């Protein structure tokens, strides 16, 4: 069972702000998603070939260097940065 607390917790981990009035709706939606996943989990899939239904194999890149991104671009979405590094604050 998905609870309101689960949704709040996941929102926190995902760094999303969820207004109070949306919590009930989201709890219901999330329960439906879990139910759907459970239904898939229960489908018989013991046979061969279920992990590669598009029958693709050996999709490779050649070992050729392409220019990397500028450090500034790499860091532009970082919540915090220092000295050209991603900065992870110690919570204590």
């Amino acid at each position: 069972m998905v609870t309101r607390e689960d949704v709040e917790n996941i929102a926190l981990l995902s760094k999303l702000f969820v207004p109070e009035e949306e919590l009930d709706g989201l709890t219901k939606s999330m329960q439906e998603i879990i139910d759907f996943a459970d239904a898939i989990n229960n489908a018989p899939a013991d046979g061969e070939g279920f992990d590669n239904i598009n029958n693709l194999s050996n999709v490779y890149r050649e070992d050729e260097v392409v220019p990397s991104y500028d450090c500034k671009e790499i860091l532009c979405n970082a919540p915090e940065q220092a000295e050209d590094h991603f900065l992870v604050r110690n919570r204590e």
Partner: protein
Amino acid sequence: MKYELVAGFETHIELSTKTKIFCGCTTQFGGEPNTHCCPVCIGLPGTLPKLNREVVRYAIKAGLAVHGEIAEIAKMDRKNYCYPDLAKAYQISQLYAPLIIGGYVELSNGRKIRLHHIHIEEDAGKLIHKHGDTYVDYNRGGVPLIEIVSEPDIRSIDEAKEYVERLQQVMRYIGVSDCKMQEGSMRCDVNISVRPEGSEKLGTRTEIKNMNSINNIAKAMEYEFERQTDLIESGGKVVQETLRYDDASGTTSSMRSKEDAHDYRYFRDPDLVTINISREEVEEIRASLPELPAEKFKRYTEELGIPEKDAQLLTKYRKISEFFDEACEGVKSAKSVSNFIIGQIFRRTETEADKEQFDVAVKPKQLNELVKLLDSGKIRNNLAKSTLEKMLDSGKGALDFISEADMGGVDDNALLELCKAAVESNPKAVEDFKNGKEKALKALVGNVMKNSRGKADAVAAEAKIKELIG
């Protein structure tokens, strides 16, 4: 009671491909922080990893070099864990269908350390802990690794050291990695347990993480063996846990116990398709492998008559063995070639780094010419030695220092004359020898060698002089 050490290794080796495993960023070591990165290797949502073909080839090479079986079908899995060294919160690795199954590393005592498997995966980024915070550099994130997982077949610290050295040697020979432990391109996790000698049952093991030098591996294992033995002797029990080794104090300490061990929730990575390895490709790669150090060692000792100790020195680095092979072409005495390399040339390549580079002034072909002169009896060993020194000083060939007059050796008549002259001109030495001073004989032989400009056969001269004065 006597206790036996039991250890298994998980060895991470960075492959020296030009680019990362799933994107085209360079794998060069170091660089300014976060300058070898792109959206794929910093794990931005919506990016698609694409496997580097060369990583698969390098891993197959590595697998063949340690006698592993190359899987026909391999797959990539996600190993989920949340730590800032991986931006995606999972590492792409292999669990259910690794590329290489089995294999072994043979040690000099004849024991084979069996391998469980070898898989490919991506390296994590580098964390720098300072001012109480963590600074993350993803340059290393996504660099291709192979992880070589051994069975718990190692029974001593010496075996452990040799196992790591052998892996290092063979991986360098086939050129898949530089295996520099100090730069982190080779790192070991050591699983270690103890059991009463003669027992078949494995004891509870601990795992020492991320060892980055052979010395530290030995010290950490020694400490851990003592600690576990003492614990059992005093009635305690070893707890299964992950340890870190502290170099400064020479002790291990707990990182986490089995209770809070990770559940990685491995599952197939849906972004990466199945890897099918054709048997043709495997054979093609097998054919491209150079002669491996163990094979060379066997050939040197069994076919060329090189003593084991010398063969070990010659096969330690690929460049030395290739130098030796080239210098041996068509010579009668491979032993002479070996002696010149281990003697004169090694004196000028003192450090391990120099030996690995093996950048010496004399080319293999030049040594080959010198040894052929020696083989044919045109020059004697002494002259060959002093000539080699001159060649090493100048980079010039043997014939720049040896004239026609030097060659041709000394026939029996000439030798007799030289010996007579030596005896006549050194009455004191003759007297000393007659009075039992064996050493005095050396002075007389030295005189013959000097006057023949090194061409005389010292052994024959000694016999002749003894005849004359004995």
